[in-house]
């Protein structure tokens, strides 16, 4: 019997055929491989969030192997001698074991924490990019809403995770959370005792938060992220205006190979940065805080950065208590406004913003081209106003540290925050608005009169003037196309490209420098005419 020889050359094709006969994936796969993605550095901010979420899932799974989500009281008996013999919860004790008695456990814990901080930061920065460029407009409102939800759900995920180790800081955070819940009119006490199973802290909250933190919220996050990405895929990415780029096309690189390679590299870069942060910068050293006891707290107890704005708003709120004189009397405590009403507004108003803006502009069109922030001064100014509002709150969340380090009166920092919160946002609105108008004007000026060359000429009559390099033919005034206007001569090719090589140039440089992200583009129609003969 003769064995059939395997033909290595035709093997991939054969294997592919076999797969295809069963699954029929070639057509969708071709579509995915050929899908075009536009390229710009600012389109990668959301990916940072996605990639740190993957790091969170991986490191978090490791942590669950060792963490014991229980408030059962134990006596610590691990390697860390300063805490030996101390009564504490099993949650805190197992968190200490993770840090000291699991080989490499601490680096995993720190990676998990750093990845969470990066995740939330990336979401914020990504949302700012979306907002300031108008990428939330029709048809992408749903993705904007999902993005906002991702922030708030990520916020809850971060808070539940922060509460798990049951150290002094996390217990204090839980205590404040219970006070916030308590403050809700009518249902406050019922909600609190239902969540904590009785009076604070009870003995079950860590077990409940654990399942919320490792199963419920991650599942919701994963589902929302999946829908988010699927929508980006379906609706195709927005792009900046530019040569050949229209509202009805996408100009960029195909998904495979360049885009995929960049994504893979970028994932490794994000993971690498998180790992270096986790190694080099200590975070949440719970063994220094000790176990949570209701009577113990230290000064400068700050939450994670993305919770600090709430801490700040709570600190700035004046002691305005509302008494309702019916029956025995009812109370709305001051903490209700900055921690329930304010976040409620902050969660809902931004979600509605795309519809508000469309309504105000009577705009029902589909927008696939991004806007430069300067071209929409009202929106940009509004965004800067929101950012300043947020920053004042974040800084106020650490006003005790500011007061201490800069030797300012603590009460003065609180008053500074109160006044700043009211005055700075409108001020920055106005300033931003003016800057946007100024930038717009300068763009038009360059388009009309050309780029400043720096060459000063003297006319025969003694006048001095600067020579301008016009951008259009025959000094014609150009229209603004929504994209960067060159404002320096080297942007026009006046300066040669830099040569590569240390002692002597490795290669002759290319003729003209190409603006990054703008390789010479020929329009589609000409190519079509030549190639597809219709």
């Amino acid at each position, binding site marked *: 019997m003769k064995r059939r020889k395997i033909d290595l050359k035709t093997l991939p094709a054969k294997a592919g055929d076999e797969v295809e006969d069963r699954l029929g994936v070639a057509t969708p796969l071709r579509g995915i491989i*050929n899908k075009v993605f536009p390229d710009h550095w600012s389109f990668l901010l959301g990916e940072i969030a996605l990639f740190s979420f993957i790091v969170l899932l991986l490191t978090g799974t490791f942590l669950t192997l060792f963490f014991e989500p229980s408030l059962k009281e134990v006596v610590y008996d691990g390697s860390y001698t300063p805490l030996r013999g101390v009564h504490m919860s099993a949650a805190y004790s197992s968190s200490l074991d993770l840090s000291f008695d699991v080989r490499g456990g601490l*680096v995993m814990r720190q990676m998990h924490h750093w990845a969470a901080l990066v995740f939330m930061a990336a979401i914020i920065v990504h949302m700012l990019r979306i907002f300031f460029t108008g990428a939330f407009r029709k048809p992408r409102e749903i993705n904007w809403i999902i993005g906002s939800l991702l922030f708030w759900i990520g916020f809850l995920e971060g808070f539940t995770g922060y509460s798990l180790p049951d150290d002094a800081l996390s217990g204090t955070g839980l205590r404040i959370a219970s006070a916030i819940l308590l403050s809700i009119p009518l249902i406050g006490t019922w909600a609190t005792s239902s969540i904590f199973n009785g009076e604070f802290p009870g003995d079950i909250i860590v077990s409940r938060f654990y399942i919320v933190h490792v199963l419920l919220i991650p599942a919701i996050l994963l589902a929302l992220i999946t829908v988010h990405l699927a929508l980006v895929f379906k609706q195709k990415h927005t792009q900046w205006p530019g040569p050949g780029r229209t509202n009805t096309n996408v100009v960029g690189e195909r998904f495979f190979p360049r885009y995929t390679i960049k994504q893979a590299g970028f994932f490794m870069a994000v993971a690498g940065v998180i790992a270096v942060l986790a190694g080099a910068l200590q975070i949440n050293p719970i063994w220094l805080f000790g176990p949570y006891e209701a009577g113990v707290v230290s000064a400068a107890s700050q939450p994670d950065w993305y919770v600090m704005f709430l801490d700040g708003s709570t600190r700035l709120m004046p002691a305005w208590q509302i008494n309702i004189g019916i029956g025995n009397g009812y109370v709305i405590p001051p903490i209700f406004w900055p921690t329930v009403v304010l976040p409620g507004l902050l969660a809902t108003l931004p979600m509605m913003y795309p519809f508000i803006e469309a309504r105000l502009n009577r705009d029902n069109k589909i927008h696939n081209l991004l806007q430069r922030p300067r071209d929409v001064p009202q929106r940009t100014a509004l965004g800067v106003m929101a950012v300043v509002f947020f920053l004042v709150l974040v800084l106020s969340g650490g006003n005790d540290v500011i007061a201490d380090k800069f030797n300012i009166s603590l*009460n003065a920092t*609180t008053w500074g925050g109160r006044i700043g919160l009211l005055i700075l946002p409108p001020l920055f609105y106005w300033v931003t608005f003016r800057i946007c108008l100024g930038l717009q004007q300068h763009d038009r000026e360059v388009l009309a009169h050309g780029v400043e060359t720096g060459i000063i000429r003297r006319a025969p009559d003694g006048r001095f003037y600067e020579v301008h390099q016009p951008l259009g033919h025959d000094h014609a005034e150009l229209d603004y196309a929504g994209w960067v206007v060159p404002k320096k001569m080297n942007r026009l090719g006046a300066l040669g490209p830099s040569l*590569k090589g240390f002692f002597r140039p490795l290669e002759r440089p290319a003729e003209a420098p190409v603006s990054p992200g703008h390789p010479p*583009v020929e329009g589609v129609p000409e190519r079509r005419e030549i190639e597809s003969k219709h």
Partner: protein
Amino acid sequence: MSVQTTGSNGNDHGSPVPEEIDYDDPRTTRFEKVKAAARQDGVEIVHYEPQYPEKGSRLERRMSRTVGLMFLLCGLFGTAFVVLYIVWPWRWKQGDVLMKYYTPLLGVTLGLMCLFIAFGVLIWGKKLLPREVSIQDRHDGGSPKGDRRAVGQTLAYMVEELGVKRRPLLGLAAAAGLAPVAVVIAAPVIGGLIKNPHADNQLFTTGWAPINEPGGGTRLVRMTRDDGTPIRPADVSVGGQMTVFPGIPEGATNAHADSPTLLIHLRSDDAAVARANNVKGTGHDKFDRSDFMYGDYIAFSKICTHAGCPASLYEQQTNRLLCPCHQSQFQITNNAIPVFGPASRSLPQLPLDVDDEGYFVARSDYLATVGPDFWERP
């Protein structure tokens, strides 16, 4: 720079069907086949240019050497990670210096390993692969009109067939019958979790409530340190303060998280002011506090009335108590009323006394409500 549009990629989805090419034709190059395949997805590769015009040029060779170096460095740091993970001393020992570098070394080697993969892959993709500009048509505005009509008509027909409009009874019965189903799903979740906050009057009692003796009568609760030892007046020096807990089982644990109390020994002139203010009753509650102090000793709940943090920073000079969480400040010598920050209610005061053996006791539980405020606080 005018924006060009073509007649073929407008909103009408009228882009021409690209002609099939023969993928087995040896006369066309593979790239031409790739372009043809892309065109089937409405993608036109309009610019595809190798980064190095001549193959195997110095610059190209240098670039590929760089990529190779990146991968080698990645392997180096990966190996370093594994070696350090195994051999470096990692157990915590008092005063051990080497052990302290275990986590930093792991993190940095792991991070550099990942970063060098990133650099290798990115340089490969960005510097060695040809530059590319492709253009793909968008198909916004949803499905073609015919499809929309088809789905709309089908759905409308289904509604008609069900006949809810013609048979209103059915609709009503279904709505009425299905409503409890939603409740049935919610009931176990809510019912299992819900817990009456007013059971045992828990919001208004603390560990300081006098204990009912088995034989009748009540016993006052002693003040203890966190190790359970009772406190005599002499244990707190003038101007000093101490966190005290109810002398009951688990009194110093989180089972009685509302009970930690700050016992302060005021200087005698401050004490006189405090006593006078106690009598005047400027506190935010309506209780008679005139005999709450014991000598120059005064005791307030340590649980902030704002968010429940322990208000623990006591400034001796001004007799102010500061809560480090949100900086509420309470004037101890004036019934602990809030003088700054977001707290709106004074700290509850604990009536003090000394028992027969000379130890501090609480004469009764707090009369005002301890801890953060809530809706139904009277």
